[in-house]
Each structure stands twice: as structure tokens, then as C-alpha cells.
């Protein structure tokens, strides 16, 4: 009986891990793309002509089997990196990504020495 239960759970989990393909939510992508003709709106928020077109193109790219990163890369290639809200890690913005970790390490070290000295 225990073996049967184990097998049922095993099959269920392996199916959920490997059987189902990762589904890309277009709305997640729309939220991370900037509407270039709007004031501070994402493609998801906007009903502009430009946003409608981008939504259609994103849908096509998903149907073609492109990954989320590939879609962002396609859009950046056409409209520049400005179109993506979440900047990709590159040489120009590496400081932006690394700095919080540096601040965390230095801040932690600073607090540690401060506490130690007071003790």
C-alpha cells in the first residue's frame, strides 16, 4: 500500500516537473515593456496604437517558441534598451547591479565593527 501511494506521488511530481512545458504569460512581458509613446506607462497599461501592435508581436513571438529573454532582446534590438523596464546586465550598467551588494557587504562590516567597538 505504501509503495502504491509513493508511486502515485512520484508520478504526480515527475509529471509536474517534466511533463508540462513552461508557459509564458504575455502580461508579464507587457508589464516589463515601456510604451514609447505614453507617459510612464507600460505596454500592459496602455491602449495606444503602439501598445496594441507590440502586444500582437509579443503574442506572435511566444507562438514562435521564443523565450521571455529572447523577446526582451528582440525588442531592445529594435527600440533600444529603453523599451525594457528591467535593464539587462551589461558593462554599462554593471555598477547598478553590483552596487547594492557592495553596499550590503560594507554596511554589514561597518555595523559589525561599530557594535564590536561599543562592546
Amino acid at each position, binding site marked *: 500500500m505504501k509503495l502504491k501511494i509513493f508511486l502515485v506521488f512520484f508520478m504526480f511530481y515527475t509529471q509536474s516537473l517534466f511533463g508540462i512545458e513552461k508557459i509564458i504569460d504575455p502580461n508579464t512581458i507587457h508589464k516589463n515593456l515601456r510604451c*514609447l*509613446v505614453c507617459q510612464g506607462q507600460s505596454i500592459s497599461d496602455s491602449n495606444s*496604437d*503602439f501598445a*496594441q*501592435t*507590440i502586444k*500582437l*508581436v509579443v503574442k*506572435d513571438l511566444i507562438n514562435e517558441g521564443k523565450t521571455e529573454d529572447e523577446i526582451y532582446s528582440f525588442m*531592445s*534590438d*529594435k*527600440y*533600444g534598451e*529603453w*523599451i525594457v523596464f528591467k535593464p539587462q546586465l551589461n558593462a554599462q550598467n554593471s555598477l547598478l547591479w553590483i552596487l547594492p551588494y557592495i553596499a550590503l557587504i560594507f554596511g554589514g562590516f*561597518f555595523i559589525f565593527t*561599530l557594535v564590536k*567597538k561599543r562592546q
Partner: protein
Amino acid sequence: MRNTVKIIIFVIFFFVISVFYISLNRETNYNTSSLINKEVPQFKIAYFDKNGSFTKQDLINNNYTLINFWASWCGPCRVEHPVLMKLSAENNLDILGVNFKDKKELARKFLKDLGNPYNFLLKDFEGKQSVIFGIYGIPESIIINNENTIIKKFVGPLSIDDYKEIKEIIK
């Protein structure tokens, strides 16, 4: 210890001011620099009045090509139309007109009234093909050379200055 704290506060203050200074001076508007000197991407746009599609391979025989995105409902397209008519007289330039999100009858009437400057007339009724060229509004025009390299992109209606510049490019 107090000096260290002062230095750290100063560094943080300096950093915040620097970030604000750089961010406020940075050009955040869309610019076309990422497209210039790049090869024209693969595309396949349906002909306006006949079956079949115009592709990148069809550009090979041409010399310079100006791809112009236009629509009959677009006011600035009317403004730039005389410039396109003047450019259509140039021998070493082909003009490719992409009718953007338009109604066929209205587009036909537009060309009948104002003249047809296009060597090839294509249609992009859903606007999806325009994304391949980084178009976000019309009119926009892209000039490419015989090696299929994008030389310049003109955002907005073509002016007399743009006409002079295009003439200089194709000379």
C-alpha cells in the same frame, strides 16, 4: 571613528547627487542610434495591390532605398508627401511605401489625390511588420544603401532639409 562616519556619509551623499545628476542629464527619449549602420533585418511585407510579398532579397538589385511608413489618416504624411514626390525623381533611389494600419480605399484615394511617389507599394495593416524596423509612429523613413545597411532613420515628416540630406547621401 567619527571621521570614518563623516567620510561614509560624504561618499553616500556624493553618490546620490552623482546618480541624480547623471540621470537628469541623460537622454531618455527613443532614439534610432541602435539601428544605424546595422544590416536591414529579414522582412516579408505583402504587396498592396497584388499577391506576393516584398522581402529583403528583393532589395539586392536596388541602389539606395528609402522605406517610408505612411497612412492616409496621418496628417504629417500629407506634409511630407511633396518631399517624397521630389525624391521620386531621383534615379538612384527607390522608394518603398509601406501603408500602415490603413483602409485600402482611403490609401488609394490619398495617392490618387497627391500622387504616387513609390516604386513599390506594400501594406502592413496590422502594423506588426513595422516593429521589425523599430517604427513607433508614422511617418517614419529609413534610408538603406546597396549593401543593405541602414544609413539613417527619419522620425517624423521628411522636411526640405531631410530632402537635401538624402540627396547628399545618394549622390
